[in-house]
């Protein structure tokens, strides 16, 4: 296609062209039927990315759920995602934890590893180094539970792969800002 000849206006939105960033959004929603479909549908309908998503009720009496979404895109798109989420009627609050900075992020994973002899020893040694707990042990397999930042889990999974990785189940990222204030 022909490249535009005229100089770019500094005001044109550079969606899809700028640097891709990863942001973690906390979204507080009414825990009502369909609310997750609304949030997920917004991402698919507008072509946004979901890298990870976790959701659970956090205040039973108030029927509030907290959704944590890790998304990727240019900063303009991520700002737009925040506004689009706020537009949904059952959404109470959206906070971009990455933009706010200094948030803690954790993910829990279960990792099943099968093997015999030396492989079992190696798996246990690495698990200890990563502070993974053994939550199931059988003669030929372990299930490890590991909590940490997503990168740490990636790293552990890669180390288990040659030893006898069978399967992985991850919760996705849960996150919270540091300090006394809520989201």
């Amino acid at each position, binding site marked *: *296609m022909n490249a535009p000849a005229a100089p770019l206006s*500094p*005001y044109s*939105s550079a969606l899809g062209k700028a640097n891709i960033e990863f942001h973690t959004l906390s979204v507080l929603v009414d825990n009502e039927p369909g609310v997750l479909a609304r949030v997920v*549908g917004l991402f698919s309908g507008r072509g946004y990315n979901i890298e990870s998503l976790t959701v659970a009720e956090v205040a039973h009496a108030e029927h509030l759920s907290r959704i944590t979404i890790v998304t990727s895109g240019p900063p303009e798109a991520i*700002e737009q995602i925040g506004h689009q989420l*706020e537009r949904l009627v059952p959404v109470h609050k959206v906070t971009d934890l990455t933009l706010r900075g200094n948030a803690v992020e954790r993910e829990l994973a279960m990792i099943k590893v099968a093997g015999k002899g030396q492989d079992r020893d190696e798996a246990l040694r690495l698990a200890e180094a990563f502070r993974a707990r053994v939550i199931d042990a059988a003669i030929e397999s372990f299930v490890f539970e590991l909590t940490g930042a997503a990168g740490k889990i990636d790293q552990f999974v890669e180390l288990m792969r040659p030893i006898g990785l069978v399967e992985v189940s991850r919760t996705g990222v849960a996150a919270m800002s540091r300090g006394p204030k809520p989201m």
Partner: protein
Amino acid sequence: MTNLMTGAEMVVRALRDQGVETIFGYPGGAVLPIYDALFHQDFIKHVLVRHEQGAAHAAEGFARSSGKAGVLLVTSGPGATNAVTGLTDALMDSIPLICITGQVPTHLIGSDAFQECDTVGITRHCTKHNYLVRQIEDLPRVLHEAFYVAQNGRPGPVVIDIPKDVQFAVGTYIGPRNIEHKTYRPKLDGDPGRIAQAVALMAAARRPVFYTGGGVVNSGPAASRLLRELVSLTGFPITSTLMGLGSYPASGKNWLGMLGMHGTYEANNAMHDCDLMIAIGARFDDRITGRLDAFSPGSKKVHIDIDPSSINKNVKVDLGIVGDCTHVLGQLIEVFRAKNASINADALTKWWAQIDKWRARKSLSFKNAKDVIKPQYAVQRLYELTKARDTYITTEVGQHQMWAAQHYHFEAPNRWLTSGGLGTMGYGLPAAIGAQMAHPGSLVVDIAGEASILMNMQELSTAAQYRLPVKIFILNNEYMGMVRQWQELLHEGRYSQSYTAALPDFVKLAGAFGAHGIRCSDPALLDDAILEMIETPETVIFDCVVDKTENCLPMIPSGKAHNEMLLPGEDAAIETAIDAAGKMLV
């Protein structure tokens, strides 16, 4: 009156308590209890449409022309899916609608029951919000909350899906008082710091322009009054999107005409060359901006919108003000006056001199003919012969819609009903029915094309049943004119499937529906024929046979900037107007 009643009775009672006097709908198995409740009362008038899409557009026409929420009532399954186009249309154009759909009984949901569909799933993406009411206890709250959500903030359609067993169930009704949404509270007032900044920018501007949209109309008549006040206070030029026509009068001296793809030369050039753009209730749609990376490169941009997600969505702005147009316009005027702000009069005079040069190009001109009716001429005559009356104009979608926007001039808001965002062919006739229901004594004209009108032709039967004297003014060129124009521009004149080879005889068709038919193909007889249409007290189909190959100009070819317009009299340029990149766009 006791507050113990069935769900169906609650629906009717809630509509009444919300001040609804007219609803549009079509009965079916899953809404029979509500229809039975309607049978027992005569406060709410039900208009029986012939297709649920018609009900949705009629409700839109009612809402757009009256400023109230439009209400439709349809059955489950096909009733709901047929309404989807109208719901999407209302979402795109921010029209407040309440759509009540019947649903199969709760115990059958998910079993692929007869006329079951996942209505809330299907309409989740084409409504502002939707509800499936699974128990009678929730129904009164949901009914009133739906009205609140549809009408507050950026308006939009809300679906309430009610299973048949909930319609039969008995519960305690709660009135609309004390019911508002738990958390949904749109921000109405603009941030005072930002208002002050906007006024400072206005005072410093050398080449300012107001760019207004449908948000001004949606905000209510007060917004239009305040807009006019602000324009006269500043003396700035003003243009509007398709959706915003009428909020500033077309006869006003600061009016540049509509902007965008088929906007005027002066409006688009003013947008391109301005140094301050004040966008009010408009959303920088692609029909408006043209090529984004060349959009108004030298201007500071202020954007006033009730929807925070509209700001910086398509175009980055320097100053976003979240708030309702009425509130923010009032604040701007107040601060402008309080600060005794003055505008740069010398610069503004020069700017107007430049604008007058663009105006002199007369971009809406066309070569009239004696032997054939030019479509622009037909709209001009319609305007001249109806302007003194209390008139509402609806349109279908295509060339006729753009000619109507260009050549019919609006002095007040809510008088112009058109499908802007979604571009729904078939919108105009049902919308005219809705507008006529809201304004029984007014003249309602659907400026139509012969292709669009066939999309919801069945609603002529509705007009006949309720003796609605809507006038259907068809600019008949036998082509889907806008498709034909784009095929000329983009595909070397290969008119693939854009010619309708078997059109009905519209005059006879009118007769079949008990309406009056008029045909005119002679420019010399046009005025008399239009007068006959206006004076006929019943529904009229006017088959206005026009030039078959007229193109709608001026035009910003797709992929081009505001200052690269295709103007009338430049026919040679048409074939090369769109480059390969532009061809990819819509």
